[in-house]
């Protein structure tokens, strides 16, 4: 077991785990199926939030035209590709080399131009890349070894007035039962060990960290699973998955 170095938000074990999952990540019927089913609801939130703040029309096929967006922890591109199709100019960063390799191949097959970089959020800050109109960080912070530093990086990568959208899992009894016991053990929807409940961050903890780095939380929503449609929908129930918007001062 390798130890995380103090200068990174990464947990090496997590990176290795995601390296191994990378090949099947894009398969909607593979081990990442729940993420595929959740993606429309996450993207609806991201799109509507960014259109609300920066303009555009949700009926258009390119509502995010002219926005520079960074997706932190982009994996093989499940969020970066839709953002690019919606017209944004997208940078994706992920610590797994394998993920980035697959993301590049996949985007090329889709005729999409996306700037993919292997590394963590800190590597972009150090490289002087930044001033993004929006940063997305979806289902990432629960895998980070240093959530505080991650949020500091996200704030640093945004331009003033820029929008952060972050989603993760709440730390509640419900999230333990649903996200760990049911999803990983009983239903087998995600590989066991995908999540560690102790690492989950509550919306209040998240908001507190954000405030410390000049990010003002403006919206928090939850997700409900609708079994009849096998789909996730945005809801007011934040006891398991939640998604929030914060604006950089």
């Amino acid at each position, binding site marked *: 077991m390798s130890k995380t170095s103090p200068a990174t938000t990464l947990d090496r074990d997590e990176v290795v785990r995601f390296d191994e999952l990378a090949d099947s990540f894009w*398969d909607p019927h593979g081990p990442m199926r729940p993420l595929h089913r959740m993606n*429309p609801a996450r*993207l609806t939130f991201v799109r509507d939030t960014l259109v609300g703040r920066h303009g555009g029309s949700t009926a258009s096929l390119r509502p995010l035209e002219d926005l520079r967006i960074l997706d932190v922890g982009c994996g093989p591109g499940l969020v970066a590709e839709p953002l690019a*199709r919606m017209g944004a100019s997208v940078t994706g960063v992920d610590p797994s080399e394998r993920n980035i390799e697959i993301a590049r191949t996949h985007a090329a*097959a889709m*005729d999409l131009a996306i700037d993919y970089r292997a590394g963590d959020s800190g590597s972009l800050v150090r490289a002087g890349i930044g001033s993004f109109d929006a940063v997305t960080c979806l289902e990432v912070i629960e895998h980070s070894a240093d959530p505080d530093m991650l949020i500091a990086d996200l704030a640093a990568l945004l331009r003033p007035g820029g929008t952060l959208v972050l989603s993760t899992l709440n730390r509640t009894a419900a999230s333990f039962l649903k996200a760990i016991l049911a999803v990983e053990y009983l239903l087998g929807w995600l590989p066991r060990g995908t999540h560690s409940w102790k690492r989950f961050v509550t919306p209040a903890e998240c908001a507190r960290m954000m405030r410390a780095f000049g990010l003002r939380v403006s919206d928090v929503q939850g997700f409900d699973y609708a079994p009849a449609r096998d789909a996730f929908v945005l809801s007011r129930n934040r006891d398991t998955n939640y998604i929030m918007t914060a604006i950089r001062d």
Partner: protein
Amino acid sequence: MATSPAPSRFDTLIVGGGLTGLTLAIAIGRLGARVAVIEAQPLEVLASAPYDGRVTAIALGSKRLLEGIGVWPGMADAAEAILDIEVGEPDSLGMVHYDHSEVGDEPLGWIVENRVTRQALIEAASALDTVHVAAPARIDDIERDAGSVELGLTNGERLRGAFLCVCEGRQSATRERLGIGARRWSYDQLGIVCTLAHERPHGGLAVERFFPDGPFAMLPMRGNRSSIVWALETGLARDVTALDDAAFVAEVQDRFGDGLGRLSLEGPRWSYPLQLVWADSYVADRVALVGDAARGIHPIAGQGWNLALRDVAALAEIVADRMRLGLDPGDGTALGDYAAWRRFDGLALVAVTDGINRLFANDLAPLRLARELGLAAVDHTPPARRFFMRHAMGLVGDLPRLMRGEAL
């Protein structure tokens, strides 16, 4: 309609520029998505009368879809409303009368000549600069990878897209080329189709009669004209099609009676073998089957194109919802959702139309009695009557937005 050079990547490729393919192209093209249609015939030929003398029954749900995509105004003047439907057996007690005023103000459906519908579709497609038509052209080769499908056409074009919709009808060559199996069932019947003029007005009444040798339908058209759709056992049908025009009309008059006065033939007669075709799957990697290519049903209930348009409305809705979120419209999630949504509806109509045909194509006394009792029961049970009417109007089931009269 954009001409060459074609854009490098389309959001949707459609093979088959018939009624179904063009409707799908317009629905998706109106979203702002780029669509390419590959059609073997020049479009002018498709819209000419000699190409297709048939008529199509358009249910209320289908009319809403055509309104929603701006096509209906181009055909409304030539559409005849069906106000009443009379279904039953001649010389029996069993007769059901469906009256549209029992379920609302809207007609039960409309009868429109296919060439009128094609013309309206071609005009609407031509007005969209997102729709590229490759015609006349056929698919020469198909390559699929994880993210797209690429087609080489006989006219030299190469098209690349997120997915391919097969709208070629029940004898789809592309379905076969892709290795998607299809079960076929020949009804051993020929469908005979023609237009008749009559002395008296039809009053918007559609008549469906079940003779022991096959069903016979008379559908109201504009003016004092009706279209007949007559399914007959193949041997008998050949005898009937061999009759000269006068003898043919006399045979129809004999079956139909003189309720509309003297009948006379208008235009040519057509006949084609009736076959049930049912594809093993609605989808394959980067491929969706739509309309008759997925399953072609018996024309007895006038539901074939309505079923196809429910495919179109469902697929267009999935494509719209996904593309507005930047999601791939042709990946496994999208196609899986489409297949799951359409499977039951298609199966139900195959079973119902097949069942009706078998039930009535039989002259055994007990079956005949059961039919009469069944029809009489429906005729005397308004809720049952209303249910069948709403079903025929395309208003039952998990309806896509376009079929509910909502925007896509």
